[in-house]
Structures are given as C-alpha cells and as structure tokens.
C-alpha cells in the first residue's frame, strides 16, 4: 500500500460544535437585521393593522347596547389579536415558503447549523415584531379610542400569557402552513386566505354577537377567536362580558385552547416541515 504525502486534515481533533441556544440568538439578530432593512416591508407590516383599526373604529363608534362600551373600543383588542397573528402566522407562513423556494433553507441544511437554531431565530423575530406591533396598536387604542390600560397586575399577567401563547401557537401554525404553497410566489395567497376568513369568523372585523353561532363555532377551533376574547377580557370593562357567547371571558378555557394549539402546532411542524421544495425531491 502506498502512503500519500498529504496527511488528511480529518485526523486533527475537531473543535466543539457551537451551541444551539447561542446560534438561535445569532440567527434571531440576523433575521431582525434582514427584516428591518426591508423598509417597505416594515412599514406595511406595522401599518396594516393600524390602518384597519383606524378604519373600523372610526366608522363604527356607537355605544354597544347594555355592554357599557363603544364599538370603537371593541376593535382595539380585536386588532391587537389580528396584529399578533399577522406578525407571526402570516409573516412566517409567507417568508419561510419563499426561503424554501429560493433554497435558503437547503443551504442552511448543508451546514452544521442545528435545525432548532433556525426556528429559535424565527421565534426571536416574531417576538420582537409582535411586541412592537402590539405596542403601536395599544398606543393608538388608548389615545384615540378610550381604551384604558389595565390597572391591576392580574390583568397585565393575563395580557402577558395570552400574548405569548397566542404568538407561539400562531407562529407554529405559520411554520406549518409554509409547507403548503408549491412555490414562493403562491405563498401569500395560500397564507392570507385562511387568515382573512379567520378574522371574519373570530370577531376581529365583525362583533361576535352578530356572527352566526355555527361560524363562531368553527372560528373557536382556531387560536384567533380565543386571543380576541382574552384581550377583550384584559382591556374592556367587566360589563362587556354580556357580549360573549357564554357571557364570561373564560380565561381558563382560553389558556387551555391556546396551550393545546402550541403543542399541536409543534407536532404539526415536526411532521410536515421540509427543507426543500417538493420538486427538489
């Protein structure tokens, strides 16, 4: 046997592989940098729910019968819930489909980056943009439409977990739906339609007491209806509970449904996530 002159470098002891959490943070920073550098995208992402809040809350402003609130006040928590879903479900559903189509994902898969770091990066992106979106809507709601910030810490706590569970559930569903469109180009239509339908049957655009029960029951299968309901519970007076289907805020049930969607969404992602396009085999 002949020995070759070049000593294979494979025999040098390898360094330690970088940790997943640290890489997740770095990916998050990178995702945010990319997001905020696309000025038009930033403006439209944040402006969309604000414009809708302004339109709906300015058109429908009458007092709601027996509830002690105005229609404008109803739209503030509703648009906050929709805003959370748009920064998580819609933005991830579309952006991941495009990244898959443009083979960004395949390239990452060819590196020793742990897949979990990619998802952690997306979670950081969604968390930061979701907090910003919610803060903007809350600022508009409190200054223009007479919504009061909660005065007791219990309500702030409720706000916190509804935000986190809702955002997580919607983000996971967004990752899952990103595998549905066949190409990046069709992604926005595939993602926006179900989101739009859910906004109609979950009490975002139309008050829940006017939506037919059967529609509301379908909406109740998904997180958005419960996020709207929970945020109404946080930001509206107790007197407004009469408008709810069961006449109460049902915080316990909200936690249960959103928690279940977090677990279910995670399973769905693990089962369906693909690094390559279908035609790439």
């Amino acid at each position, binding site marked *: 046997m002949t020995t070759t002159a070049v000593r294979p470098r494979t025999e040098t002891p390898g360094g330690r592989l970088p940790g997943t959490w640290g890489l997740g943070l770095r990916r998050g920073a*990178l995702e945010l940098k990319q997001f905020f550098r696309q000025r038009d995208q930033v403006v439209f992402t944040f402006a969309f729910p604000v414009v809708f809040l302004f339109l709906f809350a300015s058109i429908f402003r009458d007092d709601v019968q027996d509830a002690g609130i105005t229609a404008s006040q109803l739209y503030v928590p509703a648009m906050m819930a929709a805003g959370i879903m748009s920064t998580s479900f819609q933005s991830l559903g579309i952006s991941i489909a495009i990244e898959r189509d443009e083979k960004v994902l395949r390239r990452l898969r060819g590196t020793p980056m742990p897949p979990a770091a990619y998802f952690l990066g997306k979670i950081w992106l969604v968390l930061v943009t979701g907090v910003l979106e919610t803060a903007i809507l809350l600022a508009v709601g409190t200054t223009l439409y007479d919504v009061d910030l909660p005065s007791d810490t219990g309500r702030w706590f409720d706000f916190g977990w509804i935000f986190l569970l809702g955002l997580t559930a919607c983000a996971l569903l967004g990752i899952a739906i990103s595998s549905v469109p066949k190409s990046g180009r069709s992604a926005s239509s595939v993602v926006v339609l179900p989101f739009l339908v859910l906004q109609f049957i979950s009490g975002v655009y139309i008050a829940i007491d006017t939506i037919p029960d059967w529609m509301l029951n379908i909406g109740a299968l998904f997180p958005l209806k419960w996020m709207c309901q929970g945020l109404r519970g946080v930001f509206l007076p107790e007197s407004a509970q009469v408008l709810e289907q069961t006449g109460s805020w049902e915080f316990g049930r909200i936690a249960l449904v959103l928690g279940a969607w977090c677990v279910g969404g995670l399973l769905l992602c693990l089962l369906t996530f693909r690094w390559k396009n279908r035609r790439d085999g």
Partner: protein
Amino acid sequence: MTTHAKDLAVDVRGLRKRYGDVTAVDGIDLGIRQGEVFGLLGPNGAGKSTTVEILQGNRSRDAGEVSVLGADPAHGTRAWRSRVGIVWQDESAPAELTVDETVRHFARYYPRPRDPEEVIGLVGLEAKAGSRIKALSGGQRRRLDVALGVIGGPDLLLLDEPTTGFDPAARRQFWDLIRKLSDEGTTILLTTHYLEEAEALADRLAVVTLGQVVAEGEPAALRERYGTGATVEWSEPDGTPRAERTDTPTRTIAELTLRFDGEIPALRVSRPTLEDVYLRLTGQEDAR
C-alpha cells in the same frame, strides 16, 4: 497503485437513483482520494448533480454504498456536516445582508472556521465586503457562494458546476482559487461540462453519461487511451486545404517533405484533444 478504502475521501459503489421512469444514476462507482481534485465531467442530464446531491446528504438513493469522509451522507451528523463544504449549482444568499455579515455569520456554525476576512480575500471580494448581496453581480455572488462553502475549513469541498455563467477572466480567477484550496490539502470534487475546466483543474476525472461512468483516469491518460491517431493538415500548391487522419503522422510528413522538397505550406499536426475524446465517449461525436 492500490488504494485502501480508508484513504478514500469519497467511496461510491453501485450508486443508483431513479426519478419515476427516468434512471438518473445507473450504477456509478467512484473513488476519490484524500487531497485530490476530482472532476465529474458529462453533458447536462448525465446524472452529475444527482450524484453530488447524494454525496452532500441532500438526496436519497435507491441503491449502492456511499461513504463520504468515512460516513454515510444519508445519516450525516453535525460534526460530519462541519467537514463537508458545499457550493450549490443554484444559490441564494440573504439579499439584505452584506458580504462581510454573511460570511461572519456562517463562520459561527462551524467548530473551527477559517478567518472570515481571509476567506473574503481568498475569493477576491475584499472590495465588496461592505456591499449588500443584492448589489453583487452574478460572478461576485458565485464567489460568495464559494466563500460560504469553504468558511468552515472543510476537508472535502463539493462543487456543482461552479463556473456556469462566468466570463473567461472570472473563470481563470476561480481556477486559481481551487488550486489554492487544493494546495492547502482540501479534497475537491467538482462537476462541470466545461472540458478545459476539468483538464485545467482535475488530477483525475470521470466521464459520466446516461448515469454511468464511461471512462476514468488522469486527463492525459484518458486522451492517450481513447484519442488514438493524429490529423495532418497542409495546403496544396494551388491553395486547396488538405487533411489526413493517420496513425503514423511522422511517415505522412516525411512523404510530404519529399513531395514539396522543403517547407510544407500551412502544415499542422494535431492530436485529438480531450474534447474529441469526450465527445466520442459521450456519443456526441456527430455534434462537431
């Protein structure tokens, strides 16, 4: 020379892959030694890319044994991935980031990366380090792709048609880069349908057509083995160009020397080029 399997960076036996009714890879055997530059040469659709994707661990195979750096790519671990550099055929890098940011970020994925600044210099993008990727030309993006392929300091670099779309000057620069990496001891597998590229870079090459290896060896040896004979060309006194294919060119020239009694007008003797050999091997001879 016999080569023991453990000296092979890539060891492929009986590789097969079908897409529906189409057999893309039909029983390929490959043995790539540590430290060599190996060229996989063949026309479009010969099965080169499929083979490389299987070696990358990005495509499943139907049959055959594959060992890349001692492991089966179908079950590549993170540690294994950190030793294999990939330059894809069609690339996409994050458009909104700068060259510098991207290379630095990818360096974070690896346990012992190369110095990002050095790698940017290696691919000749120093002047563009601060530019957004969306502002780069096609050739510059390709060089960035190579930078991302080597940033981890790979033991094996897999390049799938790396110079497609390059202008001749960029191609020369790229060749220099590959030679530099090879001198550093990196094992390199590149696919190409450019013959002069395979001849310029590869220590050994395999010609693939219809999913099978039809010839394998050093470029010069291939030319000798498959390119027999020579062509003698000259002009008659009235200016008519003549050409004669012969296995004994020296004798032909001696005869011509006698006939012309001195200088033979427009004399040219040519051996078959690697291109002639390649076209013959891939059954495209008539295309000339």
